[in-house]
């Protein structure tokens, strides 16, 4: 699989480490969220067959986190964004 890095261009997926569903960006507030909410965040996954937004870390490159939109049935990648931009667009400060 080739990941089109927004800054570095096409890179081999081998250079990356995979973390999982990009919903991990939306961590609940540890001070207010209850145990059930945190349990759901940490352990449960939608795990769709089809389009999936996921976190990849460019470990053997510029060490940036990316949000890759990829189809889990065909492995086709349709969108690659910097995780920072995605987090900010969802209202996070960093």
């Amino acid at each position, binding site marked *: 699989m080739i990941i089109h890095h927004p800054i570095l261009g096409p890179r081999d997926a081998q250079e990356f480490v995979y973390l999982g569903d990009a919903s991990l960006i939306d961590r609940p507030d540890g001070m207010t969220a209850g*145990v059930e909410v945190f349990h759901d965040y940490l352990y*449960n996954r939608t795990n769709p067959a089809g389009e999936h937004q996921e976190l990849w870390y460019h470990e053997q490159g510029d060490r940036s986190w990316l949000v890759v939109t990829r189809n889990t049935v065909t492995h086709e990648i349709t969108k690659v964004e910097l995780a920072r931009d995605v987090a900010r667009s969802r209202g996070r400060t960093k």
Partner: protein
Amino acid sequence: MRYSGFRVIAEALTGHKGWKPVWRDPDPQPEYDYIIIGGGGHGLATAYYLAKEFGQARIAVLEKGYLGGGNVGRNTTIIRSNYLLDGNEPFYEFSLKLWEGLEQDFNYNAMVSQRGIINLIHTDAQRDAATRRGNAMIMHGADARLLSRDEVRQMYPWLNFDNARFPIKGALMQPRGGTVRDDAVAWGYARGADQRGVDLIQNCEVTGMRIENGRIKGVETTRGYIGAKKVGVAVAGSSSKVMAHAGMRLPIESHVLQAFVSEGLKPLIDGVMTFGAGHFYVSQSDKGGLVFGGDIDGYNSYAQRGNLPVIEDVAEGGMALMPAIGRVRLLRTWGGIMDMSMDGSPIIDKTHVEGLYFNGGWCYGGFKATPASGWAFAHLLAKDESHITAKAYRFDRFLKGLMIDEKGQGAQPNLH
């Protein structure tokens, strides 16, 4: 007698026209007491033990494709019970004991071959860990032996013992581990279930669940609605898709695992060998092919095929351990979809829907679990309580901090 030497000769002389299908191909009834979704090893074993050991009737297995077309027919067939943790070891040892009697039990040749499995050791720390695991196994009634470097050398003198990075210092052996002909397991359970009146319904994909007032009523399928008092789900890599019909999100990610077979060779490896440090394991089939594999690809996938980097990685692991295979040609590779759980251990439990039960999260090690999984799931379905060896495989272990994390990797499915 249905199968005999005489029959084979007689059929050979008459163009093999006399063989009959081994099980019926029934249409679905309007309602059953038990519906098992998934005609893989676990689903078929569940139906077989439900009928045979728990005396239940009116059972159907619904399979979206053909029986045994999933992971049960595409794995590397290793059986073992070499686990460390209390939640796991009694269950896998129960499974190994069932394997030992399985062919007599369902009267079918599954080629259960207890050829022994060794896990190679390269450091003192690994030897300590292996000793501890071996002791845990022995305390749960399993067998384990620590092999010295010389003992390993006697078995396989042609291994690369002096690899600069991972010199071989010994191994943990389980002599009762081995391999089994995987499709024959599906066929043996299918035939045994069919003979006891279980309806095996193929080309029947479950597309929805009818749930009323918190209770399961039946399932929607590509062959129409089928009612059921109890529904058990055993669909391996498709677990999240099927349980979504009941509104559930699971502690599971689906990942692809690849396997490899080489051209046929003369006898080279008479047991099973794992080279964990090199992400490689291997055995040799009775036809002579080396059957080997390594890590999962590492990203969510439902594709049933993997990518080239893992093929390269596995080949490198093989070469590091066994330089002698450098000229051996690869015959084929394939992939299957693993239900990777958050702690690397399975789930056999009730759900929040009354009458709906779940069996999954088997990761890349569910083949060896087939008999015990079927038995424990049948126990749960018939008696509404967990089998003694499967009590730890609960959904709420993640909420309660009772994870069964053999590798200590945390909630990161692609590392288990």
